[in-house]
């Protein structure tokens, strides 16, 4: 087999420019080849698109979407794909892939699925090229030289667009979690409660402690009840942080009562050997507040006659 080195040059030039992320500078021959390629893809649009949609269904990706949706999206992707091949510019494709990602990420489409379908399209088109040029190997090589770098760059663009969109969403959600500030509430003179809900990561733990210590100073608190009923899991790092918070509060002259340790968390803490000996723990928030009231010298006594609660009719 003899290959014309001169003829295969344009492809490698293009590949090089693809690697360097420069605009594609295609010599005349490559442009002509791409034009021929685009012509081919336009002509066989219907069957190639159907073949692609069939392969997507076969590969069992995009299970979150219906067949009709897959077909509709496949059509747009196909047209954008051909347009990108034709013009050599990727801005439109980038915008489209960002749009697409915005639509499909909330429905649970995974990164591997998106990359998978774009690679499937690349394969489907490459096969159609094999079929068309099987008689002329040299021409097939030239066509592939023109096609492959562009196709790879398209796959790259779509994948990067998808991942960027995902990361943007993750960042937004982290921001939202951070802003769900944990309130430090005063329930009685000198008594604060701090209900903690959700996952505690080191950053949030630090923020919680700072807020609590400021709250103790601002409200002149003597007792603090930290309720962790809403905390699903706790590792040694967070547990140690909790212990530190308790000790720091004590340095400010406040006693801390921790309530709402779930059976699972209690067992985990004992198993990993976190020393909770210095912590004052009570079963639930109610018990914690009662204990705190006792420490502060409050005594809750019922009225002689129950108060009439508005809205509740007493028929007796």
């Amino acid at each position, binding site marked *: 087999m003899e290959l014309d080195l001169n003829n295969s040059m344009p492809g490698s030039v293009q590949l090089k420019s693809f690697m360097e992320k420069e605009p594609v500078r295609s010599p005349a021959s490559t442009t002509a080849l791409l034009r021929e390629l685009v012509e081919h893809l336009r002509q066989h649009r219907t069957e190639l698109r159907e073949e692609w949609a069939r392969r997507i269904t076969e590969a069992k990706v995009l299970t979150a979407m219906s067949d009709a949706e897959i077909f509709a999206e496949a059509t747009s992707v196909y047209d954008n794909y051909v347009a990108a091949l034709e013009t050599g510019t990727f801005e439109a494709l980038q915008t489209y892939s960002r749009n697409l990602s915005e639509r499909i990420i909330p429905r649970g489409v995974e990164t591997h699925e998106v990359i998978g379908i774009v690679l499937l399209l690349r394969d489907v088109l490459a096969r159609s090229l094999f079929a068309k040029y099987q008689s002329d190997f040299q021409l097939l090589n030239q066509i592939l030289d023109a096609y492959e770098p562009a196709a790879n760059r398209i796959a790259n663009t779509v994948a990067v667009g998808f991942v960027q969109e995902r990361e943007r969403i993750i960042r937004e959600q982290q921001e939202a979690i951070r802003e769900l500030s944990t309130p430090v509430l005063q329930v009685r003179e000198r008594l604060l409660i701090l209900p903690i809900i959700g996952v505690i990561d080191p950053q949030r733990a630090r923020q919680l*402690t700072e807020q609590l210590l400021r709250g103790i*100073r601002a409200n002149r608190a003597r007792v603090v009840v930290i309720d962790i009923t809403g905390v699903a899991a706790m590792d040694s790092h967070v547990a140690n942080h909790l212990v530190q918070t308790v000790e*720091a509060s004590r*340095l400010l002259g*406040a006693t801390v009562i921790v309530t709402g340790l779930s059976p699972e968390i209690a067992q985990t803490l004992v198993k990993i050997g976190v020393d909770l000996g210095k912590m004052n723990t009570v079963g639930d928030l109610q018990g914690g507040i009662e204990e705190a009231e006792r420490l502060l010298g409050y005594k809750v006594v019922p009225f002689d006659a129950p108060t009439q609660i508005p809205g509740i009719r007493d028929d007796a």
Partner: protein
Amino acid sequence: MAVPILKQSQYLIATIQSALTDEDLLLLQTALVEKVGKFRSRGVIVDVTALDVLDSFASRTLRDIAHIIRLRGAETVIVGVQPEVAFAMVQLGITLEKVSTALDLEEGLSYLDKKLQHVRAEP
């Protein structure tokens, strides 16, 4: 810079005004231990509100002061630890164990009042 020690009825109040050298801290320790005996004080309050750093030596000295003064028959309360200082200390593993702490001077005084009343009430 020397720390002024004020006598207020049966208590001594030492207010630290600025950052102290190790030597100053030891002087404070000696002075307090002496004055507790001289004035027959029942309680000592060390106010650290002005400090934005409490290093390990200072913390250890404060702890020693508290323990020595307990041996001399009086109670010590450290008051006015700043939130940032408290957290930094705990992270360094300095927890002033077995030393009483209170939010500020007022709280410290009421703590001592209650504590000493309790001691006297015992037969």
